[in-house]
């Protein structure tokens, strides 16, 4: 069923466009898959749901691969998941082995993407069937655990991440109350009565803020691409890369299931694991092909893993998945446990398109390396006005509403100030998306239990999830409190 949908000419075309645009975006430093999907989201309004999701998925995994090209050739990661590829990929390029580095990144990504998809096909229906019995307490517990994990795994401190998550939840209450229908914090604005739009805020936080942050920075390095030859890895390269690709695929898939920046986390985890398992760890950082094969496989496999909570529970595990929820809702499709039952063609069509897309990426990337390299030579001063322009058009075309451009600008400036103060935007945006579900689940659960919070701990699934969340909070906060107590005790001792 899936391939009959994925191989329709229109869907094939949009799959191709998605992987091409995704790779293009991934190659450009300063514009990641979040901004790309947010930008193109309004343009999918007129498409059929399957074509829209297939194209957006193509952008996501295309960007994951595209980021590795800049890491290897310029030592500048196209997006966060490719940071670790710089370590050995760039060294390989300096040693004249840019070809095998790019080749193993493409082939490893293809193999890992395929492994991840098999996992998606197996686990998503299982989890979806299990989630059919979930009620408001379980949904509250899942969202609570998700936000706790995102804060725990965020790149800023736990206190700052918690603050950002709370801020996102609070701003998520703007608009009409989902239960009573009462207006909240909209102050007579029609735009705000619909709530803060996800796309303007995402574009501001991750598109505009990134550009403003890069103004005045040198965002180009020396391109090591004078003579890229031998793209296909030789027998020795394969021997050294085989197990890193296998391990990276598995690690990436399971990390993809977790809330948070799974692409970056999985590539770092894979790199650390390969270095630890290697007989020659001293080679890492000096051009070891394992240091490219493992992380590149892991970050591509994580994209398939990240789709599982989205398609089976209706919950986004990262910002890109939150945008996918937006895309599905725009087309009247409700993601969740009933998704596979109600929309089997869409589910299997998207899964099958990912196989096709992975193959397209392989065919697309190896011969087109030269074009991507030329793109890297376009001055950033010319590129960024166009990025800003696309952000403005993308946001405007959602509702033809200028207020949303203003919201985007405010989010951009705010995002710049926050990131410069060490606050991470990811917990904020995920909380903004999860907020309405969290609130309605909490209030419905309290109605059911007549005001008793015990309902979250007495039901087995929600109890386990809540205990996990509390454990994560405790592991993050207890050492802080302990250190603070010791510091105070030392201060008192000094005063005496």
């Amino acid at each position, binding site marked *: 069923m899936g391939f009959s949908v994925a191989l329709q000419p229109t869907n094939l075309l949009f799959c191709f466009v998605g992987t091409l645009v995704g790779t293009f975006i991934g190659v450009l430093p300063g514009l990641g898959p979040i901004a790309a999907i947010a930008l193109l989201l*309004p*343009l999918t309004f*007129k498409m059929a749901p399957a074509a829209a999701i297939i194209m957006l998925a193509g952008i996501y995994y295309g960007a994951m691969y595209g980021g590795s090209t800049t890491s290897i050739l310029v030592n500048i990661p196209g997006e966060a998941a490719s940071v670790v590829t710089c370590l050995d990929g760039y060294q390989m390029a300096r040693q004249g082995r840019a070809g095998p580095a790019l080749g193993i990144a493409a082939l490893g990504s293809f193999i890992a993407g395929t492994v991840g998809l098999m996992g998606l096909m197996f686990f998503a229906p299982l989890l979806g069937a299990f989630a059919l019995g979930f009620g408001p307490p379980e949904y509250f517990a899942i969202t609570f655990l998700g936000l706790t994990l995102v804060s725990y795994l965020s790149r*800023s*401190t736990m*206190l*700052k991440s*918690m*603050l950002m998550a*709370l*801020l996102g*939840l*609070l701003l998520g*209450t703007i608009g009409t*109350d989902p*239960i*009573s229908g*009462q207006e*909240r*914090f909209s102050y007579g604005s029609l735009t705000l009565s619909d709530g803060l739009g996800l796309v303007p805020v995402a574009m501001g936080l991750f598109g*505009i803020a990134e*550009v*403003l*942050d890069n*103004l*005045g*920075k040198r965002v180009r390095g020396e391109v090591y691409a004078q003579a890229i030859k031998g793209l296909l890895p030789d027998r020795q390269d394969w021997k050294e890369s085989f197990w890193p690709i296998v391990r990276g695929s598995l690690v990436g898939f399971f990390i993809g299931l977790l809330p948070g920046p799974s692409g970056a986390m999985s590539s770092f985890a894979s790199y650390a694991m390969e270095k630890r398992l290697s007989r020659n760890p001293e080679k890492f950082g000096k051009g070891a092909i394992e240091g490219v094969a493992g992380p590149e496989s892991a970050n591509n496999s994580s994209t398939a893993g990240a789709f599982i909570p989205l398609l089976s529970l209706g919950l986004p595990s990262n910002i890109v998945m939150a945008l996918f929820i937006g895309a599905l809702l725009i087309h009247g499709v409700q993601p969740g446990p009933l998704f596979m039952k109600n929309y089997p063609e869409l589910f299997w069509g998207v899964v099958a398109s990912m196989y096709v897309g992975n193959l397209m990426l392989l065919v697309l990337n190896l011969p087109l390396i030269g074009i991507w390299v030329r793109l890297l030579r376009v001055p950033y*001063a*010319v590129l*960024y*006005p*166009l990025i*800003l*322009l*696309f952000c*403005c*058009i993308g946001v405007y*075309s959602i509702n*033809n509403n*200028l207020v949303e*451009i*203003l919201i985007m*600008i405010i989010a*951009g*400036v705010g995002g*710049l100030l926050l*990131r*410069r*103060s*060490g*606050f991470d935007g990811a917990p904020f945006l995920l909380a903004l998306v999860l907020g309405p579900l969290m609130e309605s689940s*909490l*209030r419905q659960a*309290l*109605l059911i239990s007549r*005001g008793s919070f015990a309902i979250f701990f007495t039901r087995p699934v929600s109890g386990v999830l809540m205990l996990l969340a509390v454990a994560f909070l405790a592991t993050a906060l207890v050492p802080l409190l302990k250190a*603070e107590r010791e*510091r105070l005790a030392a*201060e008192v001792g000094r*005063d005496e």
Partner: protein
Amino acid sequence: MFKFSGARLFMNRSMVTWSIFVCFAAISLYEAGKLPFGRLGAPGAGFFPAALAALLGLVSLAGVTSALRGGADGRGSGTPLVWGKILLTVVALLGFAALFEFAGYLATTFLFVGFILRMVEGRGWLQAGAVAFCAALVSYVVFAWLLGAPLPVGFLHL
């Protein structure tokens, strides 16, 4: 207990940031108080925002305390910001929003890209004009013709 000078207190950027969040939490709590709170067994529209504002206040106060004591900040590092360029770019974005429906897509896009290249990046008039013209034309073809995005024509009907 806290040993630092008044000047250092005011220069502690981290503390200022956390204090802003304390104020924001207080205002949010006040605004949420205007909504019906309900009770635990039947929470109203103000229940969730009020609880969140209170939690936000607590976390912000913890941040202020931590900043006062010079605790680990985890501040984002990076090269210094170029405020002149940032300000001009934000002005260009605001100008885009102000002119977009009035002057239409083609004229606004030309002015926007041209302004950034000339005023922010200091490119020559000719280069800025040529790039802006191409950007306006190509993006119009892509968005309006190929993707069918509804773009305003403005008083120039372009």
